[in-house]
């Protein structure tokens, strides 16, 4: 899946996205690290985003709500596990922030200067199948997440 310097690789329980952005590393890092920027691009088209709180430090939490075009609100909670400006941001997705620490997946976002621009590598690490089963049994989290993402996909399909 390579088109205009975009590549997505799925291997085992990992998904790796590689992309080239024609902007300096500092700028790319900046738009990942500030709520006023994140609200501009994080939500899919038609969604708005409200940040309840954001602590962009190691161990800090970003709590936000995505408001869907259908009037649904999707709560999200992300914990930054390791940040090194402007090189990388590691975080854990903690689901809707209301259950226990049911980690859906971890992400590593790595910024590398490439001439005038930046190569971004994003790695999403999903829990093992067993872990997913456990989480699902306990919280029905998979179904919830599937529905949520599914709704987004359906909605995005309509926009094509």
């Amino acid at each position, binding site marked *: 899946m390579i088109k205009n310097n975009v590549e997505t690789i799925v291997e085992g329980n990992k998904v790796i996205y590689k992309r080239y952005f024609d902007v300096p590393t500092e700028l790319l890092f900046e738009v990942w690290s500030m709520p006023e920027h994140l609200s501009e*691009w994080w939500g899919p088209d038609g969604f708005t985003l409200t940040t309840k709180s954001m602590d962009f430090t190691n161990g800090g939490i970003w709590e936000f709500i995505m408001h869907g075009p259908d009037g649904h609100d999707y709560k999200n909670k992300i914990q930054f596990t390791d940040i090194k400006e402007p090189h990388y941001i590691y975080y854990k997705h903690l689901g809707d922030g209301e259950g226990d620490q049911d980690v859906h997946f971890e992400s590593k976002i790595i910024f590398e200067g490439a001439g005038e621009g930046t190569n971004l590598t994003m790695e999403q690490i999903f829990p093992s199948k067993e872990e997913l089963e*456990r989480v699902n049994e306990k919280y029905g989290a*998979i179904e919830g997440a599937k529905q949520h993402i599914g709704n987004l996909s359906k909605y995005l399909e309509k926009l094509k």
Partner: protein
Amino acid sequence: MNAFAALADDTRREIVRLVAKNGELTSTEIGQNFKISPPAISHHLKVLKSAKVLNMKKEAQKRIYSLNGSSINEMEDWLVDIVDLWNKRLDKLDKYVLKIKKERARDKK
């Protein structure tokens, strides 16, 4: 019950492994590998069939089970959706940073 929930049970996971290894097995053959009662095995098989993890065909008095290859693995399904979402999100990010870059270049002039 969905496939994930169906597979959250140790015995059912073991049944699926057994069937996967052998291709096809009758309910009797499956039962011989476990110490639990035939009705309990039959219940597990019913769950796995309704969750579309296993296929079942009847031949005379036999019920023959095999892996359901056509049932979409939920995790993969879910993964595809997430990949799609993130690719679109990164598209948006690309547009957004180029816009900011332009604005800042203009402000400098």
